[in-house]
């Protein structure tokens, strides 16, 4: 039996019972669209999260005080809230001299109340040098970032996050030139950051107060160590080399001979990206696996209807066998019908999934204002088509073999 005849015959059968065909496909449509929607949303979420990490800056290597004893991704001591004082100015200077490193910046963070008039807000203040803005891609939307001169002169100037500006000064007002108070020190606001959202270490960058490192570290915190040091490799290809240089330099500086006893932890953006990428990929797959349960339910629906169809068309099977159809011809005919049902259901499911993903993208970007990408991964489409066809075969094979096994005489006698 020719493929064209199989397809034509199946089309005629499905067309004849349009409503039944549509209802039968519904399970597959729902299953496939769920898989598509969840895989697309998973992909978009992954893109969003990775973009956030990439937004930290380019070719960054982050050095956190305190070592990790239990492997690469266990939390360093500093990240667990333990005060570690191992990173100091001497380290920053030593790193800055290495040719594999293009720039070094450091941070000393603290918590305090920021106030303007009657308005106040609990904030993280981040004491940073002037080059921090460039290295970490912090854009000042209004005003200007403080300068090396401000840092060296211990000027009481601050750059604040956009949402903090709204909270303290009211939406739409211009805080540049106004004074805020943090830890009993009056700071002149010289700039407001462009909105960026929650960044590394879970800090909401839009609520930050950035002050000169000299002022923050010495006058506000009274310490001589840093919360972290960030270095920038010369380019993306030398990040690994720069990372090994950082390790060597700091071990020398800290007189460490056994790398297992490092009192610092180095993480590159790539480490973070790959870790987050792995987590979000697993989450996406997990969601898709849950959605695929509905595909199984849809497949059982198809099998059920195909079994009914085999019984209803017993006489047709008898007739076809009497005019020369072999068991294989009958098997193929019923199998093609179920595959066609699931295939068409799969195509409708992909289209429906695309519509929902598109609508979600519109709502998230236009209404919620989040920089959400429209992800419609080709892999999800291919998997959907493949899975729907395989579902058709898997759940169609039993009814089809039942049909093929029918004796022509008994089939012809069937009333």
């Amino acid at each position, binding site marked *: 039996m*020719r493929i064209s005849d199989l397809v034509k015959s199946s089309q005629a059968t499905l067309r004849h019972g349009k409503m039944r065909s549509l209802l039968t496909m519904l399970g597959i449509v729902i299953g496939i669209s769920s898989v598509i929607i969840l895989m697309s949303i998973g992909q978009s979420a992954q893109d969003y999260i990775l973009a956030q990490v990439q937004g930290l800056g380019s070719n960054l290597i982050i050095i956190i005080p305190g070592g990790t004893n239990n492997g690469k991704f266990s939390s360093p001591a500093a990240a667990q809230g333990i005060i570690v004082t191992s990173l100091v100015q001497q380290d920053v200077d030593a790193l800055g001299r290495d040719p594999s490193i293009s720039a070094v910046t450091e941070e000393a963070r603290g918590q305090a109340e920021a106030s303007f008039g009657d308005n106040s807000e609990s904030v993280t203040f981040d004491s940073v040098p002037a080059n921090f803005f460039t290295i970490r891609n912090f854009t000042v939307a209004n005003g200007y970032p403080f300068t090396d001169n401000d840092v060296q002169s211990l000027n009481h100037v601050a750059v604040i996050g956009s949402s903090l500006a709204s909270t303290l000064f009211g939406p739409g007002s211009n805080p540049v030139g106004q004074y805020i108070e943090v830890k009993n020190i009056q700071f002149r606001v010289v700039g407001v950051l462009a909105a960026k959202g929650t960044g590394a270490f879970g800090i909401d960058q839009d609520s930050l107060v950035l002050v000169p490192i000299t002022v923050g570290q010495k006058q506000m915190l009274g310490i001589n160590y840093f919360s972290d040091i960030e270095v920038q490799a010369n380019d993306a290809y030398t990040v690994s080399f720069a990372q090994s240089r950082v390790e060597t330099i700091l071990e020398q500086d800290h007189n460490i001979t056994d790398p297992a006893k490092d009192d610092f932890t180095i993480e590159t953006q790539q480490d973070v990206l790959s870790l987050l990428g792995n987590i979000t990929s697993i989450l996406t797959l997990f969601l898709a696996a849950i959605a695929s349960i509905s595909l199984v339910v849809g497949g059982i629906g198809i099998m059920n209807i195909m079994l009914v169809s085999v019984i209803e068309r017993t006489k047709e099977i008898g007739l076809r066998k009497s005019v020369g*159809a072999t068991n294989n011809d009958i098997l193929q005919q019923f199998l093609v019908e179920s595959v066609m049902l699931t295939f068409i259901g799969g195509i409708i499911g992909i289209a429906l999934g695309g519509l929902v993903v598109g609508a979600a993208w519109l709502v998230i970007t236009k209404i919620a204002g989040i920089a959400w990408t429209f992800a419609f991964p080709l892999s999800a489409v291919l998997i959907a088509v493949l899975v729907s066809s395989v579902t058709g075969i898997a759940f169609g094979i039993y009814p089809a073999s039942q049909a093929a096994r029918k004796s022509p*005489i008994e089939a012809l006698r069937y009333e």
Partner: protein
Amino acid sequence: MIDVKDLKKDYIDEGETTSALRGVTFSINKGDFVSIMGPSGSGKSTLVQILSFLDRSTGGSYTFNGKKIDDMSDIELAHIRNKSIGFVFQSFNLLTRLTVYENVEIPLIYSDVPPSSRKKLIEDAVHAVGLDEKLYVETAKLSGGQKQRIAIARALVNDPDIIFADEPTGNLDSVSGAQVMSILDGLNHAGRTVILVTHETNTAEFADRIIRLRDGVIESDEPVKNPRHSKDEFFK
């Protein structure tokens, strides 16, 4: 053409054996028109099912066109049914969701005739039963007589050697029945072998010979003295 010797068929149901055919022997030559008659339970349906390759005997031998069919595979039998046999059933067995064209096309699908060559064969077969104007009509919309004529067209489309007609007039009024018999008669006159199963003597007498069965054996096998031949215009 057909040569059966001591043909037997036993059915075993829940350990109990029922003999539908108890040793039947006869021959049918090419171009013969043979009626098989007998009361219910006489074994005539079983005999025709075996002769038309829908079932297998449990004893004796069956030779068709010089070939023993007892050892043939199911696929070979399906191939013979497709190429050499045309069926006409009492209940027409048309697929009512399909058009006349599509129904008549079914045997061609299984004989691997390319779609481009089918149209002429289908038109010729439908023309042979005088229903050219119904070619693209859904068979659900046809009368009983027209349905049976389309079933004959389907039986003819692959140019078979032999036509088996099982009670072809059983569901028809007398006028339609006469039309159908005249077509079968015409086909026989054109050289085709026709085997007719019927319980109506009038219909059986269109044949040249009547084989009567009773209790699984041949009761009589005699020529018809004055076969009724159609004067109908259908096959002139």
